[in-house]
């Protein structure tokens, strides 16, 4: 069985990503994007650097200009990006877009992968229709018309929706609102007539959008995968996405934790460093222990995804569940242990909390994934 440690190449990628994020996308960059309500929501120069390093194509096949380095490798990049709260199209395009096309795309659709790898083509996955993630609840309709379809409905919490060149939309071609079959995935041009994309603002200052589809006509070639059979590849895609979000949560939680421990060692009250209070030491030790569990679960989920292991779905859900739970713990404790400072906008610690919550909710929170683990384990 594969050892739960990184290979030398994977470690090198992690180090490279750490260097890149630390130098080109520190927390101050996110803060500036937020303060200036930057229309793009990321810094193109940074994205170019990331692309030059090959990060956008980490999951893309070599035949399409990527490095096909696998989920363990990409996961290290996601984790490091989480540490600096780096804003970039890496997740929506490099993970979700790339994997959607790899899982379900035909040859001509897969041409988009070249654009993903070279950073020129951005994608966004538009699936959620309500505040809570329920991927099978699809009310958006796609009705046959001529050779193609007409789409009507609306999507919310669409990461990078307003900057995407291609939207990947789930719509119902048959069945009732919550049926597993009858869901079809479509590639939709956001510039097409009837598509409205409205950027929405969240506490993390990152890119989300509402997408409205009003009689949007698409051709038969817009169908990604098989008609009515979209939920199988979608579920695989969500497993992958969940594991990568768990990695991001691990990164941001680890950073919030490190900063909190550092603060405990510099803040004095009662004439001593607050790190000398056992009440606080035990909370820190508990968090460290929890973070170690998350590390193991995230790594194992990626290895299972790379190996095509039948446990991959369960492990991805378990990782996302635990990472969400621990991110909530660590970011809450982080603010608490910073005292009044933790409540200020000037101090970075609050930014980690504000990033954690949307990522926890994205593709399902602890409750969603705990329910799924139970289901997959047959209880």
């Amino acid at each position, binding site marked *: *069985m594969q*050892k*739960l*440690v990184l290979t030398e190449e994977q470690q090198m990628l992690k180090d490279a990503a750490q260097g890149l994020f630390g130098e080109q996308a520190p927390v101050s960059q996110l803060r500036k994007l937020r303060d200036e309500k930057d229309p793009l929501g990321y810094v193109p120069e940074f994205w170019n650097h990331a692309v030059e390093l090959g990060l956008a194509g980490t999951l893309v096949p070599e035949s399409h200009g990527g490095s096909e380095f696998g989920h363990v490798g990409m996961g290290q990049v996601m984790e490091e990006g989480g540490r600096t709260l780096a804003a970039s199209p890496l997740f929506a395009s490099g993970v979700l877009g790339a994997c959607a096309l790899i899982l379900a795309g035909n040859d001509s659709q897969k041409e988009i992968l070249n654009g993903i790898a070279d950073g020129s083509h951005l994608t966004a996955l538009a699936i959620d229709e309500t505040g809570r993630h329920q991927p099978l609840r699809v009310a958006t309709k796609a009705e046959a018309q001529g050779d193609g379809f007409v789409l009507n409905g609306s999507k919310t919490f669409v990461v990078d929706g307003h900057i995407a060149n291609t939207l990947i939309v789930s719509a119902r071609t048959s069945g009732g609102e919550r049926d597993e079959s009858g869901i079809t995935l479509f590639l939709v041009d956001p510039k097409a007539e009837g598509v409205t994309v409205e950027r929405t603002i969240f506490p993390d200052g990152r890119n989300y959008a509402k997408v409205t589809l009003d009689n949007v006509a698409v051709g038969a070639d817009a169908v990604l995968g098989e008609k009515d059979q979209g939920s199988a590849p979608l579920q695989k895609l969500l497993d992958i996405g969940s594991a990568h979000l768990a990695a991001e949560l691990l990164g941001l939680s680890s950073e919030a934790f490190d900063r909190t*421990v550092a603060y*405990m*060692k510099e803040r004095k009250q009662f004439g001593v460093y607050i*790190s*000398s209070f*056992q009440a*606080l*030491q*035990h909370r*820190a*030790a*508990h968090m*460290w*222990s929890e973070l*170690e*569990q*998350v*590390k*193991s*679960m995230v*790594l*194992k989920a990626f290895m299972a995804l790379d190996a095509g292991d039948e446990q991959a779905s369960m*492990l991805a859900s*378990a990782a996302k*569940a*635990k990472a969400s739970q621990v991110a909530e713990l660590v970011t809450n404790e982080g603010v608490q242990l910073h005292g009044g400072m933790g409540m200020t906008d000037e101090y970075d610690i609050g930014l980690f909390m504000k990033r954690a919550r949307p990522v926890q909710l994205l593709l399902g929170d602890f*409750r969603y994934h*705990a*329910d799924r*683990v*139970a*289901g997959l*384990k*047959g*209880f």
Partner: protein
Amino acid sequence: MTDLDTFRQETRAWLEENCPQSMRSPMKSDKDVCWGGRNFKFQSEDQRLWLERMADKGWTAPDWPTEYGGGGLSREQHKVLLEEMARIQARPPLNSFGIWMIGPAILKFGSEALKQQHLPPIVRGEIRWCQGYSEPGAGSDLAGLQARAEDKGDHFIVNGQKIWTSYADKADWMFALVRTNPDVKKQEGISLVLFDMETPGVSTRPIKLISGESPFCETFLDDVRVEKDQVVGEVDKGWTIAKYLLTHERSMIGNMGSTAAGQKTLAELAVDAVGLEDGKLADPMLRTEIASWAIDSIGYELTAERAKDQAKSGQGVGNVSAMLKLAGTELNKRRYELLVAAYGSEGLLWEGDDRPAGALPQEWLRTKGNSIEGGTSEVQLNIIAKNILGLG
């Protein structure tokens, strides 16, 4: 076929041939455990045979060197053996403080003569050991121990009292921490010594636990003669060895967090007790709590595995045993709370032959000791805070 595949095939065939049928089912209670030792009464001829056959192969201590009777298996082979045993639900042939605790310490720190003397009988289950660490005044503050060993030339004379000594009344030998030098910093005057429980001056008195059973004792040491060649490592340098041994003990206790192969999982037991409704556990709140537990248990098992893999790749974080002990024991306590909840009042039936959950009330109470024995959870948190996080 790789060497490991060959090993798997051979192991499977050997187990098929040598593991008695009655040893191929999960143990029903503590009474089915084989502890070995001079006075051990085997439950059955099969139990004796199973121990003897496994000991012949050295597979009671699979990863110990063959020269001391061990199996000499690599970590991968050891894993295969455990997997193959789990496949047929083979019971562990031997539970042993010798294998879990003092053996590894002797292997690492003991003289050649000590290894020759003590390791083979441990592997064979002939000598049963107990651990004389804790004292009435030295629990969490173990280094504060007072049992005094006076130098008498070729031997020591030991006086003092140990407490919470598990199975002292059933053990053949004790490994004990004693103070050989009272005039230095408390950690620097401690030695780890070995002696036969039949030595004059050793006496034990059982203590009844909250579960009603009496697996541990007070142990009194009055003018007990200990030969100098029975010191593990150097005199006065026992603290390092004691801590090394504790890391083994902690991994072992923490391991209770994992569900043994062949054992039903918490979720499966809960389904038996509560039933399913539309494919889901019929009690939704209980289902939520068990799902949460199951996720934590995956995290624990993977972390234990990652710790071993890291250690092997030389990337080990020190003191992971503290974290694994903390996480594993808290998990095991939660598991039993959830089991009690799943069975409801039926699960708390204290006596009787056909209780639906068997000895669950006693087992549940026993788990409360997991986060105390081998160093309490609070002590593990202190170790992590101090040694890993540098908080002080």
